[in-house]
């Protein structure tokens, strides 16, 4: 099968936008931007909200059971996604919430593929951003590796 031409809609004519959200005001600005973008589409977009949790480091994984860690990451992830979910709801858009643990760029690329998203919308830098830096390292690496369009929202 040949690769299909680039498209802004999935098989059902719907646009699915992947929104990596860390809960920061900047990431919420990106959600608002996606809401505005959706208004320009023929059919409203589905917002796929993704929170990527960094794996616990060093000694922690040796002492805390896997199930407890998962529960912890799940709770933290839900907390980070709560406001974004509310924004989508208020705009009347369908949204999904996903929480994964791993390297942030790898997880975003993986989620875009897995959840059949047509584009990734994210803040140019999130929590880790140093003010004055135009592009965060995450957006930089995403631009390098993503086969899908990446929309960077500057805040």
């Amino acid at each position, binding site marked *: 099968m040949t690769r299909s031409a680039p498209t802004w809609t999935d098989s059902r004519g719907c646009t699915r936008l992947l929104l990596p959200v860390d809960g920061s005001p900047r990431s919420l600005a990106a959600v608002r931007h996606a809401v505005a973008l959706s208004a320009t589409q023929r059919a409203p977009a589905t917002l796929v909200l993704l929170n990527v949790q960094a794996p616990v480091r060093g000694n922690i994984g040796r002492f805390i059971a896997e199930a407890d860690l998962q529960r912890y990451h799940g709770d933290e992830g839900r907390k980070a996604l709560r406001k974004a979910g509310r924004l989508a709801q208020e705009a009347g858009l369908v949204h999904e*919430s996903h929480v994964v643990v791993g390297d942030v760029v790898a*997880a975003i690329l993986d989620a875009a593929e897995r959840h059949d998203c047509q584009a990734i919308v994210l803040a140019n830098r999130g929590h*880790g951003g140093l003010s004055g830096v135009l592009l965060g390292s995450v957006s930089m690496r995403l631009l390098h590796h993503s086969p899908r369009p990446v929309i960077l929202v500057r805040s």
Partner: protein
Amino acid sequence: MLADVIQELQTPLFWVGLLQIIGVDIVLSGDNAVVIALAARRLPQVQRRRAVMMGTAAAIGLRVTLTVFAALLLDLPWVKTIGALLLLWIAVRLIIPGEEADSDSSEASGFWQAVRIIMVADLVMSLDNVIGIAAAAHGSLLLLVLGLLISIPLIVFSSQIIMRWMDRFPVIVTCGGGLLGWVAGVTLVSDPAHAGLLESARWLHTVSGVAGVALVLTVASVLKRRRLATAPVPIEEGHRP
């Protein structure tokens, strides 16, 4: 005694040592607080507070005890060599991402289970911390005690803040690992067991320190690359129409 302390305060060696000790404390104390918080997380509030307090008190007590041992043992031959080798391993483990997948510890479902997890973790982590501090103190009792004192507020108050910084600014972790590598290298050649070595060649001090940094960063980056190859783990696929 006091005169000695005042004299020591005036040497650059003391201040360099102090900076190193602060660095070691920052990178090797944060996870202790996080383990305590995570182990107690699912307990009802009153029990949780009790478990956190017990865990914190135990961590402090263990550190004081281990620091006394370190002060007593440090001048014996071969102790520094063993400590330096352990420290190299601690440094590598600091940089590579955690081993979440193959954890075989039990879930912290009850109070005593949480306390047991916290105690075991306290022991291991305090040992890491004291080895790091003792090495960075290069035989100074004053620095050893300061290192201990600085680590206590980090366990009690820092909780997740340090860990979050480390996630957001991985350079802290790399620098911390490099620092531990340097301290390990310098400690290795200052072991009284090979006293003649350093006497004959002062430059060995620097060379061994740099070699420690290089070794830690190389091994960690190789192991890290292998770790990162593992796929992201979905925690939940929460669809909400």
